[in-house]
């Protein structure tokens, strides 16, 4: 019974993704890459490859036509960025305006390291070996212990 349920469960997980992968994409390698890197502007977090929105289909046609005309990948991207802005690129450019976007995470990671380091260092101060007792202390301790025993 258990294995049957498992089987059904995984069967649907697998078939789901197979059915959803209708977006097998074009045979042309450049077209496939471009479809993946360009944003569908209607459903804004999908790539052209995944989208079947009418505008996405039109944009795919534009890309295909331009590839057939012999245009390069960057030429096609420039054409679309000129019209739709940088937003159409799913991966932002490495530009000065975007430096915070790209380097921000690294910056915050470094801050995190710094804070962790400072914290651990502070903690280690208290972990130092305690000083040995002085003779005087040793004697008074002995006294207390002896008293307790008797």
């Amino acid at each position, binding site marked *: 019974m258990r294995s049957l349920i498992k089987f059904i469960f995984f069967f649907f997980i697998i078939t789901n993704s197979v059915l959803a992968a209708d977006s097998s994409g074009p045979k042309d390698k450049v077209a496939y890459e471009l479809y993946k890197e360009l944003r569908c*502007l*209607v459903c*804004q977090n999908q790539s052209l490859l995944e989208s079947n929105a*009418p*505008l996405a289909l*039109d*944009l795919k*046609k*534009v890309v295909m036509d331009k590839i057939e005309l012999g245009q390069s990948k960057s030429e096609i991207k420039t054409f679309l*960025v*000129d*019209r*739709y*802005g940088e*937003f159409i690129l799913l991966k932002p450019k490495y530009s000065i305006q975007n430096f915070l976007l790209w380097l921000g995470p690294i910056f915050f990671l470094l801050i995190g390291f710094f804070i962790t380091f400072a914290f651990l260092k502070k903690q280690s101060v208290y972990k130092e070996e305690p000083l040995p007792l002085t003779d005087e202390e040793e004697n008074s301790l002995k006294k207390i212990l002896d008293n307790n025993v008797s």
Partner: protein
Amino acid sequence: MKNKLKYFYSYVPLIIFSILVLFFARQLILKEDPSELPSALLDEKFPSITLSRLADYELFSNKNLMDTDNPSLVNIWSSWCVPCKVEHEFLMRMREEHNIIIYGINYKDNKEDALKVLDLNDNPFYAIGVDQDGMQSINLGVYGVPETFIIDRSGNIRYRHVGPILEYDMEKIILPIIIKIKQEKL
């Protein structure tokens, strides 16, 4: 000195918090829709497009937008687009009350349906061009209907409006820009 530094450190969380508040308040107060894209063509020449004629209606081309005495609007619409129907009333008002020249681009539409809309609801357009396969609109960077461009007297795009033009958009955004363009010296 060390004490002063410690004093400063205790304020760091407050400072960071204030910066975050300002950062988020900006989005809240400006009420910008992040899904709405700024036009990449702002302050640039209206791209060259080729449109076809819709029945007996006057056709327009890039020539009409260039070097005119008046600023004009270019409105992308379709009979199947519901927000366009909402917007229609305000396009009519702009034509009739404010004498604004509006050019219409009929986007991926069925000819008969488009004609029916113009017959039934009046025609706000000075001239109309048909973009049957949507390729001309891609040249304009259009990503949904309706969209409206304001073109100044030398044929440059001055503003792009995404979505229907409603009362507020007409009074507070479109008309002031038109007035501003009219006041500019050529």
